[in-house]
């Protein structure tokens, strides 16, 4: 923990700390808020902070985006690349894939929310829980004896 | 006492003169170190930034929606045009200028359109202009 008091160390790791704060904000929304749409928004925040963390690993100090200069015949100009530092393109590729998959899962979750609202007439988690408990109680009343008093 | 006043005014005016000479000197050295276009570009960028702040400040501080609409249009017109023109003049004639022109043309079309759409939606939904403004509008109709 004494590392956190070192200013040099803190300057190099401040990004990571802020990513974690952001991630935990998303987690707090997912855990604490009962509205399902808001939970999806929280999940998005969590997701984006993970993406940023991942992309920040590929960043090189003094580097630029991995887009190479071209010469007159539209080939990559390897001579002009010589002194230039480029950031690592691999995290960018992986995160590009992850973003598209993320929007797919988000849309699936939102479709589920629409169906939940149709069935339960609410999108609040606690209300849904109460309704489900009521349904269980009803079932117990109806079929409890038939199941031998176990259900 | 009179001598003190005289001395103070002398001091003040010499200070002003010195500042004037300093300003002229700085300007001349700027113009000799850089071209005229560079300096115009910087002025445009600086004023564009100031306009952006003015617009944002207005949209924060103005009392009702309709005056905030007016303040936000300052950023959309003054800020965007000045900043894009400044960046274009700074980069010279190349692909970047063309892209900047494209952005400018697009914002020039979409900015007023979206602002009009917001204002229209607000008016249709029943957000009334303040009383004074409404009175002015009615007087114009007569």
């Amino acid at each position, binding site marked *: 923990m004494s590392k956190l008091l070192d200013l040099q160390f803190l300057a*190099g790791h401040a990004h990571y700390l802020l990513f974690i704060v952001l*991630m*935990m904000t998303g987690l707090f929304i997912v855990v604490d808020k009962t509205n399902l749409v808001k939970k999806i928004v929280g999940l998005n925040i969590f997701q984006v902070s993970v993406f940023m963390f991942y992309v*920040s690993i590929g960043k090189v100090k003094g580097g630029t985006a991995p887009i190479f200069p071209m010469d007159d015949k539209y080939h990559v100009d390897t001579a002009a690349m010589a002194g230039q530092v480029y950031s*690592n393109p691999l995290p960018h590729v992986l995160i590009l894939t992850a973003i598209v998959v993320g929007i797919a899962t988000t849309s699936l979750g939102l479709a589920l929310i629409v169906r939940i609202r149709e069935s339960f007439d609410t999108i609040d988690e*606690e209300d849904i829980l109460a309704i489900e408990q009521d349904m269980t109680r009803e079932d117990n009343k109806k079929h409890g004896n038939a199941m031998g008093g176990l259900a | 006492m009179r001598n003190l006043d005289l001395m103070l005014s002398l001091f003040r005016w010499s200070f002003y003169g010195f500042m004037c000479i300093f300003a002229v000197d700085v300007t001349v050295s700027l113009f000799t170190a850089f071209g005229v276009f560079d300096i115009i570009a910087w002025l445009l960028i600086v004023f564009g930034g100031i306009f952006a702040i003015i617009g944002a400040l207005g949209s924060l501080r103005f009392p009702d929606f309709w005056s905030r609409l007016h303040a936000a249009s300052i950023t959309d017109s003054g800020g965007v045009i000045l900043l894009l023109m400044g960046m274009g003049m700074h980069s010279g004639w190349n692909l970047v200028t063309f892209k900047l022109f494209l952005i400018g043309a697009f914002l020039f079309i979409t900015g007023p359109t979206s602002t009009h759409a917001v204002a229209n939606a607000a008016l249709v939904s029943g957000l009334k202009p303040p009383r004074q403004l409404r009175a002015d509008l009615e007087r114009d109709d007569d």
Partner: protein
Amino acid sequence: MIDTVTNIILLSMLVITALAIVRMDRLFAVVMLSGVFSLLSALLFVTLDAVDVAFTEAAVGAGISTVLLLSTIALTKPVEKRARHTALVPFIVVCVTGAALVYGTLDMPAFGDPNAPALTHVGPEYLARTPVDIDVPNAVTAILGSYRGFDTLGEAAVVFTAGIGVLLLLSGLRRRREDEEEDQA
């Protein structure tokens, strides 16, 4: 220096936006704040040299995601209810998780360190071979389309599955609703 300060300011604005999302209970405002959130995160991607990621994040986060959230709210209720439980337990959970993650980052190399393990093996190889093998100026496109083409195929499969799932979930919506209205009438 300026890069770091810009990053920190952008990240602080992101955190402020996220906290505003936590506090806001009108879902329209939450959706708009999340649109602003993804615009800001795309800005941060630009400063982290991930231009293509910023492109995608802007299109997906600020465009598609906002429209999807808005249409969901159109089909459901626009105002969030106050939670009945206390926020203490979630807060403790979040703090413990955050402390564990911070402990995990202590051993990481500093931000932008060129000797970090992540930057010394595969990345330079890709950067060196892309101009020779594929001759495309954008290294990200080259890797995405060629070296890691199967990843993209898997992504397409996932998106296809998700699309089928959404269609299955929403297919009978209007029909069922009309049936309901006929029943009520």
